């Protein structure tokens, strides 16, 4: 169905300096995505590739439009962090016909030529593991927990589910008092404040991302509980800001998970470059996103 001109299509490029690539982020307000972008831009710079960044702002249709425009505009490869992979199917298929490489990072899309994927359930499990370990050691496996999820993105919901299931499985004596949507510092702060009013002895906040966790930390700090040995905050994404709070001695910010966004963005460009050199693969090329727990001890040690 994608007729018309083939403007911008270059035949099997060998010199990468006349290549151009676009990055379409699901939400550039999210520091993790933003760091993927940084990796993408660095890789492009190192390889003399012209690059563009687009922000879907969590809007699926905007991302479809962006990617469509980028393909029509003659980009050679698109690196994406999809809001929703299924939505991209037809544009990416059309892109493939034009010889455009498409690599997804974190979320997947069946029609992309490459994928650096994240298993969100496992990710949630790893975030929760940090908390489980600490609760077992310091609270004797008991306590009250609240989960701050990112409930408006499918993959993040799976992450939240991973957190919830792990805690329920590993710590039957722990009471999960709430699961609320809070994926920004602002929301994390007010939701945690409100939860503290209702449950003053709330021990642990497990947040699906650092942004929510950082807000929760502010809430505890406002209540003078930022160094309470009975409390803990756990999250994922290993942003610099989270590390800053973790490196405060006696801080209740106790754990996060490193998803290596910069490396992912860099690797995606390299994968695309390879594909453009070798020709697009028939099968999607897959590579798992690295994921390592990061605890307070490590934060204090590297300080």
């Amino acid at each position: 169905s994608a007729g018309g001109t083939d403007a911008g299509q270059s035949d099997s490029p060998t010199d990468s300096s006349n290549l151009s690539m676009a990055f379409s982020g699901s939400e550039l307000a999210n520091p993790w995505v933003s760091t993927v972008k940084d990796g993408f831009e660095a890789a492009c710079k190192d390889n003399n590739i012209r690059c563009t960044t687009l922000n879907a702002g969590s809007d699926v249709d905007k991302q479809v439009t962006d990617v469509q425009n980028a393909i029509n505009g003659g980009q050679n490869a698109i690196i994406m962090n999809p809001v929703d992979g299924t939505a991209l199917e037809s544009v990416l298929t059309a892109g493939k016909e034009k010889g455009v490489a498409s690599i997804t990072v974190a979320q997947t899309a069946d029609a992309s030529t490459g994928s650096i994927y994240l298993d969100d359930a496992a990710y949630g499990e790893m975030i929760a593991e940090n908390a489980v370990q600490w609760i077992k050691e310091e609270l004797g496996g008991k306590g009250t927990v609240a989960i701050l999820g990112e409930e408006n993105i499918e993959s993040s919901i799976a992450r939240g589910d991973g957190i919830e299931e792990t805690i329920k499985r590993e710590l039957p004596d722990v009471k999960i008092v709430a699961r609320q949507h809070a994926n920004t510092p602002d929301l994390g702060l007010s939701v945690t404040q409100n939860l503290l009013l209702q449950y003053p002895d709330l021990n642990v906040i497990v947040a699906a991302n650092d942004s929510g966790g950082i807000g929760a930390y502010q809430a505890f700090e406002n209540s003078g509980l930022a160094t309470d040995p009975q409390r803990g905050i756990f999250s994922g994404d290993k942003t610099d800001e989270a590390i800053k709070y973790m490196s405060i001695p006696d801080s209740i910010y106790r754990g996060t998970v490193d998803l290596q966004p910069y490396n992912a963005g860099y690797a995606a460009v390299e994968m695309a470059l390879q594909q453009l050199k070798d020709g697009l693969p028939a099968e999607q090329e897959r590579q798992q996103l690295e994921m390592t727990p990061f605890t307070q001890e490590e934060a204090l040690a590297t300080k």
Partner: protein
Amino acid sequence: MNRDRLVHYVFEYGIVVVLAVLVLVFSLSSPSFFTASTLTTILSQVSVIGIIAIGMACVMLLGSIDLSVGATAGLVSVTAALLMSMGFPVWSAVILTLIVGIVIGLFNALSLTLFRIPSLIGTLAVMTALRGLAYLLSNGIPIYDIDAGFKQLAQGSFLSIPIPGLLFLGIFVVVAIVLNRAKIGRQIYGVGGNEEASRLSGVPVTRIKYFVFALSGLLAAVGGLLLLARTNSGQPSAGSGYELDVITAVVLGGVAITGGKGRLWLVLVGVLIMGTLSTGMVMNNVNDYVQQVVKGLILVAAVAFSQIAARSQGGRTITR
């Protein structure tokens, strides 16, 4: 005198000049811009916003506003996907969800006419509620298992014009005719211009409000179905923030926010300006952050141009 007339038209339709300039600039800066495939792509990309904007234009001609359109589109997208995944045939899912859109519109009209809630706040509240409902229904997760044939709605084309674009143009033509040629169109302008005088002239004001809000709801539902077909999955967040884009397009098209004044075909131009800007900037490798800044500035410039033009024609109006 002929020169005067020309000047008059150039100024009255300043917004058309803005569109022409944009097309020119992008065509020069990017060779692949002024091609059939780019232009039809723009048309199909703006179709959702455009269809919803047609309904919004009617609502704004009445002097009201409908902030619930984006959320309606989202709810319809989720509901239709849900119905199809439950095995309902495509046609029944479509009809049911179009009815959902109409019912939402009727509710908006009800809250305006019976409870006398200003539409700005009434539809804002409905927007909040519907968005919550869309998440509740889908449990926050996109729904994929939709009928394979359905996406033809977005991906098919006829005479090499994509179907969403055709649908948009078709709806535009019908509504434009109704607004200009039909009784109810005249009544919409009348009510928007002076509700009290219209009522005293025997215009069924309340009925017209129901009609217009139902139309807006219906067109938002059509937009939602197109979104579903485009993205191939029912997204609870679909259409978020569309209300602002749609209002931008409508006001760009010169519809007075106070009602009673404006031309539908200029709204079409407004919609195209928005689409051209997005596509043109992406094709020219403009960074997204910069895109937003440029978009904002161009919108200000475009409206300023057509306002100054209108003023030079002597019409002194109070702007707020």
